[in-house]
């Protein structure tokens, strides 16, 4: 037994703890995280508190009342912009869901889906004013449309589509195509396989992408400014009002709070559908 394997001699590891072992690093992550969450949610909470304060322009909540909400509901100027935003949002949400489903089913089957996906996702990073100006020229000169409702809808669709697509991809990339084969094997036509098997399984993603499409459109300002013509959407109206007339600011706070309270639950619903419900099934 003399032919043992011999390795080079190695110094034993030092028992001293270096700075990288210090517990502070774990704590830093924890408290840094709390600070960040505070930075995100404190201003939102403050806004809601100010919207129910008698003197919101003072910046300090107190002397609570709902008078600005009453003023908001008594005022009808924001109704049309709100309606326009809602209708455009619904249209964009629906078209996003359909388009993203069709394209999102096809993408994972490509040889190099990454590159194509990158092209689709670029609008997320193209500056809003560049895309706005480009679409302005496109709708007017190429499509020959008058600026207004439909040009805003188009701009919102281009903006919201990448989000919808990314969301659909969460479900289409996870979708097990062997289920399609099982359906065909059992005698189902391609249509039946889609409606009975693929569609119900992709459903959470389709609904989420519609919700996201709606939200992205509902909150959009930059592209709307270029494309709106004389149409006013709700965020544009609020921005114009807040910039022009100090007296309108309190009701803008109320409006912003209401929009926030509608948006957040929708967002939560979308994420719940995508990541909680999907994992259960």
């Amino acid at each position, binding site marked *: 037994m003399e032919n043992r394997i011999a390795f080079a001699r190695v110094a034993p590891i030092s028992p001293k703890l270096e700075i990288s072992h210090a517990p502070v690093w774990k704590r830093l992550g924890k408290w840094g995280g709390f600070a960040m969450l505070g930075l995100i949610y404190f201003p939102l909470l403050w806004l809601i508190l100010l919207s129910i304060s008698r003197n919101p322009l003072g910046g300090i909540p107190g002397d609570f009342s709902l008078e600005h909400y009453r003023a908001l509901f008594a005022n009808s100027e924001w109704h049309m912009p709100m309606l326009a935003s809602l209708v455009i949002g619904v249209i964009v949400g629906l078209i996003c869901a359909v388009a993203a489903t069709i394209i999102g089913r096809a993408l994972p089957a490509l040889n190099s889906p990454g590159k194509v996906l990158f092209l689709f996702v670029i609008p997320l990073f193209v500056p809003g004013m560049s895309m706005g100006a480009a679409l302005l020229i496109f709708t007017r000169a190429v499509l020959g449309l008058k600026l207004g409702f439909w040009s805003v809808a188009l701009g919102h669709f281009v903006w919201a589509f990448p989000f919808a697509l990314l969301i659909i991809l969460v479900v289409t990339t996870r979708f097990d195509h*062997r289920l399609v084969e099982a359906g*065909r*094997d*059992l*005698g189902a036509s391609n249509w039946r396989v889609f409606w009975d*098997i693929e569609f119900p399984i992709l459903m959470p993603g389709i609904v989420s992408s519609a919700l996201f499409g709606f939200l992205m459109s509902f909150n959009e300002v930059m592209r709307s400014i270029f494309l709106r013509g004389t149409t006013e959407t709700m965020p544009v109206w609020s921005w114009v009002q807040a910039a022009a007339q100090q007296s309108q600011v309190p009701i803008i706070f109320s409006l912003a709070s209401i929009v926030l309270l509608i948006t957040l639950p929708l967002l939560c619903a979308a994420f719940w559908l995508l990541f909680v419900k999907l994992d*259960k*099934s």
Partner: protein
Amino acid sequence: MLEVEDVVHRYGMVTALSHVSLSAGRGEFLTILGSSGSGKTTMLRVISGLEMPTSVKVLRIGGADVANLPAAKRNCTTVFQNYALFPHMSVVENVAYGLRIRKMNAADALREARRALAMVQLEAKADRRISQLSGGEKQRVALARAVVTQPAILLLDEPLGALDEKLRQDMQIELMELQRSLGMTFVYITHSQEEALTMSDRVVLMSHGRIVQSGGPLDLFDRPESRFAAEFMGYENILPARLIGREGTAGIVEFPGGARTRGVVTVEGLKAGDAVCVALRAERIAPATEGATDALKAEVTNRVYRGKYIDIALATDAGPLRLRSWHGSHVESEDIRRIGWNTNDAVIFAAE
């Protein structure tokens, strides 16, 4: 029931199936055996229609020409390796799906589905979600879903691969009983020789897209016709030798060391002087008594204790051999000097 003639299938440059023909009769349990990449799964997909072959001369299921029909129009169903159960449907809805597609009304379809579930002892879980089932239960649901439509042929793609040893053995018996009671033709894919030998009426051994050997389980187990078949069927000892004489199916070979032995020739056309291989199972070799004819001198070089048996490595005149002893201490304690085997257990086929 199933007739396939001359299938060729290529993926780009790779030939997955190269001129394969096979057939299965009514009520036959046919197993396609092979390692991964042998083309056995591709073969199954060609039969089911999930894969359209590059070319095929004849492809009939239950007498009907299906060569150009899509999977949905073929009278066969598949039990998939990963089960492929629909996660958004309950157990009974999964089983009823094929019936609903065949336009059976909902109440009848559910009743039939429950009967199929009863057949696999799962009626109690009919209303569960798929995610609430264990692997073995999913396996049964997949089986019920596939047979409830009463296909001419049931295709099974390594259905027991994901189950643990004990469950797998129980399911083997259950599958055999199910197949007998339904009288259905089963085409079963597996890489496990044990499964193939246990369940099949006939076994087709595949390698590199070709059929290497086919026949009854016993033929494959005891009469391999090539080195590949012998290795795949678990022959531990495969020794090079030269054929020096023949007496009917029996052959006499000479090992490079000069030792001679007898065996059974499994292939046609071998003649004296040909290079051959002699295959021997380790458990069919035994220590020979002093003075026995045809025995080889042997010397023990190593012993490996494996619980149920002991593997003993030997140096012999024929070359290194492995002997497997099931008697534990008995053989272990005695020093082996000579070994022998039954002539029937030595198999002779052409060297590559």
